């Protein structure tokens, strides 16, 4: 018996075959993978997971592929670090950082892409494609190269240099669209309708999105098989938060962890905060906006899963907050200076919001809190190039050194 039983509309429950489709033909709701949980439950265990690979594929039983020959570059199972310095500064006694900046292409997107490409090949596709704000572009290009299949990557033309080079190096068909991400996304929806390609975040999206669950699985496992009390997650499409929540609930349902009482708090940049705005206005309508922020990886003005992220925050008693561009840079610096982790602008948003929530008492000091750092700072160097220490230029002599640092005792 297969572990995938089919696809199911999240809104109206209509069932579909597990093919490359993503919306309900009737209500246009998102299709989600439906598993044969009874079968999975019969053989999954903490022990079995522990002996699995040191990658997200240790959770193979809960990922939507049937093959054991997965296309993997070793993504996932990234460090969960106790953030003692940052915690002390913010008055949080049990703060952890989930550092997903150290994946094969330096962002959490490798998790979803590994699942998507494995499924795409399993379904018989020979071309992979995506609409991306940058991190996904790097990942699709890399995994496409590794799998030996064609890749078409669509990005807004004005992305950070690190993301354009970090994609181009894998030699995909890279298309820079003159427009923002939402326009790239709309274009790709039309292209996906016209070409028989596996668009990871369009027609493969039900499978792709499931990869993000593994962040929830890992955190629970790394905490000694329990859910955290509070999480802070950056919001772009809202999919990541929705799936981390699903991951924790699945672990609970399968008896791998106890009750999930985790509060889910969301972080967006002030210049692109449609989901946070809906949260603050207590309105379930997420109104699209036109982004203007340095956090380009979060610059989705019309977020596909905005409604579900909104619902997750409301349902779990979490909060939603924004930070401006200066606070984003401050957040990047703060994480680097306290914990030795160099994150990209999205991480700056997360840390900035974490700080706000801690300072206003919305995160309690004894709550076991995990902040998700989803991307690497080397990709968005423009954002902090003015804010970093510069080399002190000296002649190659001891004298020159001691003159530059007269305060150092010998």
């Amino acid at each position, binding site marked *: 018996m297969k572990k995938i039983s089919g696809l199911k509309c999240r*809104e109206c429950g209509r069932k579909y075959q597990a093919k490359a489709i*993503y*919306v*309900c*033909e*009737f*209500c*246009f*709701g*998102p299709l989600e993978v439906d598993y044969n949980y009874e079968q999975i439950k019969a053989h999954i265990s903490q022990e079995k997971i522990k002996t699995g690979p040191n990658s997200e594929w240790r959770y193979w039983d809960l990922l939507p592929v049937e093959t054991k020959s997965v296309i993997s570059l070793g993504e996932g199972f990234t460090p969960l670090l106790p953030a003692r310095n940052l915690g002390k500064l913010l008055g949080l006694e049990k703060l952890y950082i989930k550092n997903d900046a150290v994946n094969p292409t330096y962002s959490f997107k490798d998790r979803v892409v590994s699942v998507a490409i494995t499924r795409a090949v399993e379904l018989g596709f020979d071309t992979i494609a995506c*609409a991306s704000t940058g991190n996904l572009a790097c990942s699709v290009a890399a995994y496409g190269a590794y799998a030996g299949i064609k890749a078409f990557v669509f990005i807004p033309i004005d992305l950070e240099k690190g993301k354009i080079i970090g994609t181009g190096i894998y030699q995909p068909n890279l298309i820079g669209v003159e427009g923002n*991400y*939402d*326009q790239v*996304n*709309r274009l*790709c*929806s*039309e292209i*996906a*309708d016209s070409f028989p390609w596996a668009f990871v*975040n*369009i027609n493969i*999206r039900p499978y792709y999105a499931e990869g993000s669950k593994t962040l929830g699985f890992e955190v629970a496992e790394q905490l000694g098989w329990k859910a955290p009390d509070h999480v802070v997650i950056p919001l*772009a*499409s*809202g*999919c990541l938060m929705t799936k981390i929540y699903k991951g924790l609930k699945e672990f609970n349902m399968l008896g791998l962890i106890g009750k999930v009482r985790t509060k889910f708090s969301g972080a967006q940049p002030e210049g692109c905060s449609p989901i946070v705005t809906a949260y603050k206005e207590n309105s379930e*309508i997420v*109104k*699209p906006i*036109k982004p203007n922020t340095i956090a380009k990886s979060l610059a*989705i003005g*019309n*977020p*596909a*899963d905005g*409604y579900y992220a909104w619902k997750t925050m409301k349902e779990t008693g979490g909060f939603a907050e924004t930070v401006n561009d200066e606070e984003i840079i401050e957040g990047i610096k703060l994480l680097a200076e306290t914990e030795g982790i160099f994150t990209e602008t999205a991480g700056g948003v997360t840390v900035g919001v974490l700080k706000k929530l801690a300072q206003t008492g919305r995160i309690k000091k004894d709550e076991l809190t995990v902040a998700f750092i989803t991307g690497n700072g080397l990709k968005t160097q423009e954002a902090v190039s003015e804010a970093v220490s510069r080399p002190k230029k000296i002649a190659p002599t001891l004298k020159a050194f001691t003159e530059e640092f007269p305060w150092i005792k010998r």
Partner: protein
Amino acid sequence: MTTSIKIPAPLRKLTGNQAVVETEAETLIDLISDLDKKYPGIKERIYDGKEIRRFINVFVNGEDVRFKDGIKTKITKGSEVSIVPAIAGG
């Protein structure tokens, strides 16, 4: 001159598999009613009686109608209207 409407794959069963159809309507709400006359059942799939459904985006010449006048958005002759599922990307 007529306006062309791009129909997404999930709705093409209703349009006899046509990916592009034509209309002469002058506002979005009239366009939806006109479509429903030609292809019965399509209206309730994209319109909830008040607004465009949550999981659908409608673009007129590439601009989301939510940035325009919603269902009252004017459609000038020769425009291009796209109906696109909202659940994509990210």
